[in-house]
């Protein structure tokens, strides 16, 4: 699956500039995370049809890019996430970052993960019978 990342300058209004555009285009965010450093931030989010949206954002002079990520369903119980991470760790796959969201019905939690080799990681997870999401529909 693909996630959109947008570069944010560290100054007031830069987050709002992106969100205002998404609102104008009636884009619904399924999941999002905001990472920041002292100097800049990266806004990451998941939407339907990210390819089209990233083009539109670039036309509006945002620095935006598509990144291949994994979305894994996690059982909503203690140790659910630990189980997934354990599988990856045992195969020497390290996670660059992750963030989570809950399905609209609230039955299942999902984690969005960025790993170096998405292909390898998804094969391992499938073998371990983890539930991987291929697309998001609302």
């Amino acid at each position, binding site marked *: 699956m693909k996630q959109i990342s947008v*570069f944010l300058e560290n100054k007031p209004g830069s987050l709002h500039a992106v969100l205002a555009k998404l609102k104008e285009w009636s884009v619904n965010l399924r999941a999002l995370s905001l990472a920041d450093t002292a100097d800049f931030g990266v806004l990451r989010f998941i939407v339907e049809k990210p390819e089209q949206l990233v083009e539109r954002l*670039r036309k509006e002079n*945002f620095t935006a890019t598509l990144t291949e990520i994994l979305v894994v369903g996690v059982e909503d119980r203690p140790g659910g996430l630990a189980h997934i991470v354990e599988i990856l760790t045992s195969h020497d796959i390290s996670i660059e970052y992750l963030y989570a969201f809950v399905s609209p019905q609230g039955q299942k939690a999902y984690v969005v993960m*960025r790993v170096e080799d998405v292909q390898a990681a998804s094969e391992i997870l499938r073998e371990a019978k983890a539930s991987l999401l291929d697309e998001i529909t609302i």
Partner: protein
Amino acid sequence: MIATFWDENYELMPRQNLEKIQLNRLKKVLTRAYYNLPYYRQKIDQAGIDINDVQSLNDLRHLPFTTKQDLRNVYPFGAIAEPLKNIVRIHSSSGSTGRATVVGYTRNDIEIWSQLLARTLAGCGVTEQDTIQIAFGYGLFTGGLGVHYGAEKLGATVVPMSSGNTLRQIQILKDFQITVLCCTPSYALYLSEAAKENQIDWSQTAFRLGIFGAEPWSEEMRVEIEKKLPIQAFDIYGLSEVIGPGVAFECEFHQGLHISEDCFIPEIIDIQSGKPLPPGKSGELVFTTLTKEGTPLIRYRTGDISSLNYEECQCGRTIVRMERVTSRTDDMLIIRGVNVYPSQIESIILSFDGIEPYYQILISKENFLDKIEVEVEVSSEMFSDEIKVLETLRKNIEEKIKAELNLACSIKLIKPKSIIRSESKAKRVIDLRKKEGSL
């Protein structure tokens, strides 16, 4: 090799012969300056010099300099050595760094100037087969009209666009099958971005040559421009006080700019002491005009930093070459005691992959210490979703600047197009220290 000499006689002249002509002309122009320019006569008299004592080119070094301030002091017509009835054209510098300077041209000056520009354009490879779009400003600025007359003299087809109106420029470039574009290097970049946004397919155009001048630019900038446009980029040099464009030009070897020495004597001097420096040494460029009637200048300090190379060029020209000007004496920054030119920072920034050729240097004071921050645009192509990649890029640029310039600065990554695009001369340095100091 493409032989593109407009004036073989002067461009390939043995130095001995050239120096004879120079000395002859120098004596004449000195007499003219002494008798017709009260401001210069005063300088000569104060220095206790008899102009008849100037008997060799070497004696030039004893004559007083002319500065931009001298010309400003005699605004508007005090630097014009002829009655206005003999002056057919007046140009004036922008006055962006102070009061304007005014120069006058006699009919003869205009003729020689046109010849010099024809020589310049021919040296860059322009022929009568070319269609040249002149996007330098027309008006008091010498760029537009200067190149215009030269291009007509050469016999090229001239499209006098003047500056601005970028979409129209691109339209004409395409529709008229323009082969040569003449403008500032920063405008060439601006135009390339606008063309990209409008999905211009360069293979459908005849565009092949870019002739750029009127602001300092680095070799790295040339590489960027040649990457973004389907052209070979040439640097030309000139300044309105000395004549306008047409003082020096690059040939196809791009190994410095050939100075038309039959019309101008160049010197390189030490910025502080004013003493002449030997060939190869870098310092302030000084010109004496040899043919100008309207506004003759003796030892005019240009404020541009360069060096001279008297070796014969691969192209066969014997006239001296000046190193391309990438900085000026007045844009030298002193940051915590370290001398830095913006062009040095530019070279480092552009040596990193994926960095756009737009940047801005901000200098301020923090706790009484100079603080320098360089804003660099992050393009979508280079943008990585991973923070550590961006952080590494930022640190690598900072470290390279520290290592090469001994300057601690902070790099700030900013969004593309946040730096204002310039349609004429780019403003790359914002020095906030001066304002604070004057309060």
